[in-house]
């Protein structure tokens, strides 16, 4: 069926244009251009017979924005001119809308993000429905792009620099009420009928409507760059932006630059500058990576790795074993999703402490006015803190979050598995122990699965689901559904030592350790870690994880090696240094009083001076690019090995897992997407050079060589 922009004129001569394109959503593509220009042609032709226009949508979204798949195809050095001209076409149409000479009102019945909100901005008035489906804003920055349909220029012209700058730089998505408060829309309505009625009432009351920037003598609210206050605002935004982006993503800087130029030049010129900005950004590696991230998030959250044909499930009652840091966090996120929680520990005190964590987090929300006392009480009521095993009876999911000890975990399974409801799922929140091994004592190993959370659980958005040898598809589907029920993003990996995220994460710490042992200045190691876009340097991250945990995990690994007759837990710098830190200096990590850093109460952390007496060689230096690439490539090569060993099944799982689980730099689009935009052959060459200089841990895996030779991408 072909799409339409329905055109209906009422008795008051107000035309309602209802966008109803052929796809599932209204989107900025060739069809839009065709339908929109035909609509404008007709409106212009019939202008004398109409009083005004209401623009709305027949879909559940108002209008979705740009065509990402299409933009991903744009090639640098080739397609910029076309993109620039495309922006011009879209802009010219919207200018015709706002200069129609009749009031045009956007009746926003669903999400109007990006291009959708740019259409709204070209109208004279915006009425949004107070529905959860309504979101407005310009989130292009999160895709590495900028709003190229007049979004920057119009938002700045409408709100002034001060109010426009954050929505543009952060890509904030507003619900109807917040959009109203922030000035992005002018009215809200409770029902669709009310929305249309309000839109029509505005048309009648404002027959002469026009946008102020088309009026002679127009001044941007709050002033232009000649106003010292505004010029300070812009200047102040520069270092703030750089602090955030570390210069790794070009879009925010380009947006700020267009904002500044909007404050210097006239509307038409600013529009052209904005178009050039979009044309320049679309083909950057960062935009490609971030757009790919967006699509892969949809793939992952859309159930790409969930077995097909299994009915969607919901957990009603979850049991959590161990009320430590992980257990209490899992209890919190589960209760917040409305799930009944049994939080069990050895003693009632320990269990109560675990529940108190939820109380603490909720109370913060109450204090900030984000939650009512009633709501808080309701969530707390869902959690039963107990030392009694019997309370677990009837759980449809039990997540074991006890110490990383095979015997202890086996004992838990033996004792408590029978309490599960019929066909209930047993999940283990292990980060190191093979699920197949843990499932050994299980009566129903097909219902046994790994559910690896990240710390702090309330903040980290990822769950790594680990499929054991005997885990059934149904169990996987149920674990997947639970992760989504608690609003986490699930990636699915196969059982192996260290799974995916822990294994790759360890290489970052290890490479940092090797650089330290070689005698490089620790400050340099840390700053290069940050320079590549990791949240913190490898030494700081070791402190966060804690040397204690690293040593324990490695010792567990050694035991596993013996038990399984494998050789995984071999010697590594991460372990060596953590052990030295504990054995020689009793420094177990940040939570244990310090590690590579000192953590003065109320002050900023600083490097523990003694570390300079370990390996540091004054004058030892490495090329900056080598340090950076060692820290980055090490993780990628390890991910490639995982992929080669079928630890993950999809590129999307690997990319999303690396970004959301271990802080791999967002602008890369993930461990494999980075290789795509870096260039496979170039990546192989660089790996070979690093191997030559620094060792075989950089040797490019065969899978990569094959792909590079075939000219394939990781998709």
């Amino acid at each position, binding site marked *: 069926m072909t799409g339409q922009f329905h055109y209906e004129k009422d008795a008051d001569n107000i035309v309602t244009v209802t966008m109803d394109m052929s796809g599932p959503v209204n989107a900025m593509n060739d069809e839009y251009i065709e339908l929109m220009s035909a609509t404008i042609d007709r409106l212009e032709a019939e202008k004398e017979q109409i009083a005004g226009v209401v623009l709305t949508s027949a879909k559940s979204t108002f209008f979705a924005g740009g065509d990402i798949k299409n933009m991903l195809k744009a090639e640098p*050095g080739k397609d*910029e*001119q076309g993109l*620039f001209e495309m922006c011009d076409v879209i802009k010219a149409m919207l200018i015709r809308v706002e200069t129609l000479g009749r009031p045009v009102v956007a009746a926003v019945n669903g999400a109007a993000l990006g291009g959708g909100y740019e259409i709204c901005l070209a109208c004279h008035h915006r009425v949004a429905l107070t529905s959860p489906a309504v979101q407005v804003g310009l989130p292009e920055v999160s895709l590495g792009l900028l709003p190229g349909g007049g979004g920057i220029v119009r938002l700045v012209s409408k709100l002034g620099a001060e109010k426009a700058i954050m929505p543009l730089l952060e890509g904030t998505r507003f619900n109807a009420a917040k959009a109203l408060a922030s000035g992005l829309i002018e009215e809200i309505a409770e029902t669709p009928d009310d929305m249309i009625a309000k839109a029509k009432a505005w048309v009648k009351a404002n027959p002469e409507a026009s946008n102020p920037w088309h009026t002679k003598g127009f001044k941007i609210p709050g002033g232009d*760059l*000649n106003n010292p206050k505004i010029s300070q605002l812009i200047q102040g935004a520069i270092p703030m932006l750089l602090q955030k982006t570390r210069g790794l993503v070009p879009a925010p800087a380009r947006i700020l630059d267009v904002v500044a*130029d909007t404050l*210097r*030049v*006239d509307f*038409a*010129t600013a529009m*052209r*500058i904005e178009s*050039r900005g979009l*044309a*320049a950004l679309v083909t950057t590696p960062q935009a490609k990576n971030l757009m790919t991230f967006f699509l892969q998030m949809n793939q992952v959250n859309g159930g790409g790795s969930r077995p097909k044909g299994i009915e969607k499930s919901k957990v009603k009652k979850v049991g959590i074993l161990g009320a430590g840091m992980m257990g209490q966090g899992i209890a919190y996120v589960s209760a917040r999703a409305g799930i009944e929680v049994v939080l069990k520990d050895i003693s009632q005190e320990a269990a109560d402490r675990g529940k108190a964590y939820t109380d603490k987090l909720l109370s913060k929300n109450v204090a900030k006015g984000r939650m009512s006392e009633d709501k808080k009480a309701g969530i707390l009521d869902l959690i039963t803190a107990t030392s009694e095993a019997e309370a677990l009876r009837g759980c449809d999911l039990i997540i074991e979050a006890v110490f990383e000890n095979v015997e202890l975990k086996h004992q838990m399974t033996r004792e408590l598995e029978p309490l599960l409801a019929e066909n209930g799922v047993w999940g283990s929140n292990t980060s190191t122990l093979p699920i197949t091994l843990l499932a050994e004592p299980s009566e129903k190993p097909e219902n046994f699965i790994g559910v690896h959370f990240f710390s702090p659980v309330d903040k980290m958005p990822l769950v790594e689901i680990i499929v054991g040898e005997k885990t059934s598809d149904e169990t996987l589907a149920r674990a997947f559904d639970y992760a989504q029920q608690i609003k986490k993003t699930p990636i699915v990996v196969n059982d192996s030592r260290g799974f995916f995220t822990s294994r790759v994460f360890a290489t970052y710490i290890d490479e940092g350790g090797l650089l330290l042992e070689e005698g490089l200045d620790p400050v340099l190691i840390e700053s290069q870690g940050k320079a590549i876009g990791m949240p913190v340097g490898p030494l700081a991250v070791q402190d966060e994880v804690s040397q204690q945990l690293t040593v324990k995990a490695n010792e567990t690994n050694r035991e596993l090696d013996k038990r399984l007759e494998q050789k995984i837990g071999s010697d590594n710098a991460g372990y060596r240094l953590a052990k030295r830190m504990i054995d020689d200096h009793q420094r177990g990590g940040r939570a244990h009083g310090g590690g590579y850093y000192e953590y003065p109460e109320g002050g900023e952390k600083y490097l523990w001076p003694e570390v300079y007496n370990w390996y540091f060689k004054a004058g030892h230096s490495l090329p900056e690019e080598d340090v950076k690439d060692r820290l980055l490539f090490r993780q990628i090569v390890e991910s490639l090995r995982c992929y080669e060993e079928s630890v993950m099944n999809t590129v999307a799982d690997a990319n999303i897992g690396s970004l959301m689980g271990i802080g791999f730099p967002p602008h890369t689009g993930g461990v494999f997407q980075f290789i795509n935009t870096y260039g496979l052959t170039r990546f192989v060459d660089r790996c070979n050079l690093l191997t030559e200089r620094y060792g075989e841990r950089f040797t490019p895996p065969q899978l990569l060589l094959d792909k590079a030779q075939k000219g394939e991408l990781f998709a």
Partner: protein
Amino acid sequence: MSNTAFIYDAVRTPRSKGKRDGSLHEVKPVDLLAGLLNGLRDRHQLDTSMVDDVVMGCVTPVGEQGSCIAKTAVLKAGWHESVAGVQLDRFCASGLEAVNIAAQKVASGWEDLVVAGGVESMSRVAMGSNGGPWGEDPATAIATAFVPQGIGADLIATMAGFSRQDLDAFAAESQSKAAAARDAGHFDRSVMPVKDDCGIVILEKDDFIKPGTSVESLSSLKPSFEFLGSLGYDDVALSKYPQVAKIQHVHHAGNSSGIVDGASAVLIGSERAGKELGLKARGRVVATAVTSTEPTIMLTGPAPATYKVLKKAGLSLDDIDLFEVNEAFASVAMRFQKDTGVPFEKINVNGGAIAMGHPLGATGAMLLGTCLDELERRNKRYGLITLCVGGGMGIATVIERV
């Protein structure tokens, strides 16, 4: 003098109307200049670490052109960090002054390779927005009998007996010469298209020129300085020129220089620098001069500056094959011709600022490039570039094709 200051190249951006509807309004002055610098670098695969200094004229060095635009543009262009930059202001002579200083630096032997030119985005940074005591401070303005230069231009015309018709004829001629030269490609070697950072062309060639301009088409334009004169400036000027009964306000937008955006860059270096970089010299700077004349009439400096520079060069007027006299106003170039007797056929043979515009800080170096191009095209030897300058100053440079 120890060294010869060779001209290795001279480039410029096209010029466009210096208003919001001008083609270059969307380009920041720093990018206009940085883009041109990189055009020059790329054309010669210039190792920028060899460049000692970048000297740039800019007459309104505030806001987007403030804080040493020369060094800022060098930084934005990504040139080697050892390259210095300085912005200077000698009013309308700034671009040529930059060239002259660069030549002096090289000739003295104290520097080997210098880029000189200028930039002015008159659409983004309005002329006069930098203020200054000469016109704004009452005590200074009164003590120096300051009048806006248009009044001086009209006074020159009045005193020389140039009629509105004469000036308009000169202006129309400038337009037709410029259009013919542009269309024949005479500027192609030196005019570098302005592109955005994706390489999309923003402006390819000068688009300010108005071909088909005639005395008749100019006749409808209103005098530009009559109102200012009536405010009292006419009387201020006449207090210095009691022999004149009344100033005839004969200049208007069509026979005065155009307000435009543009930038220029000239690569000047020693013989050794040229050899090391594998550059072929196109010309050399023979001599330079600045002088100053009566400041109220203000715009009579070109002829005295010309005599001064010729004396330094050991040349006579007849030795010069081509003259570029900045068309700040039609009366300035006509007065130069009258003062010196140089035939019109040798002056501004490809038109001037009336047709192509006068981006204040950049023009001087643009004229030098135009002159050098034409010397090459005609296979001639000597050229002389001169401009009238605020404060009564005059500047002149003699170049020789090599």
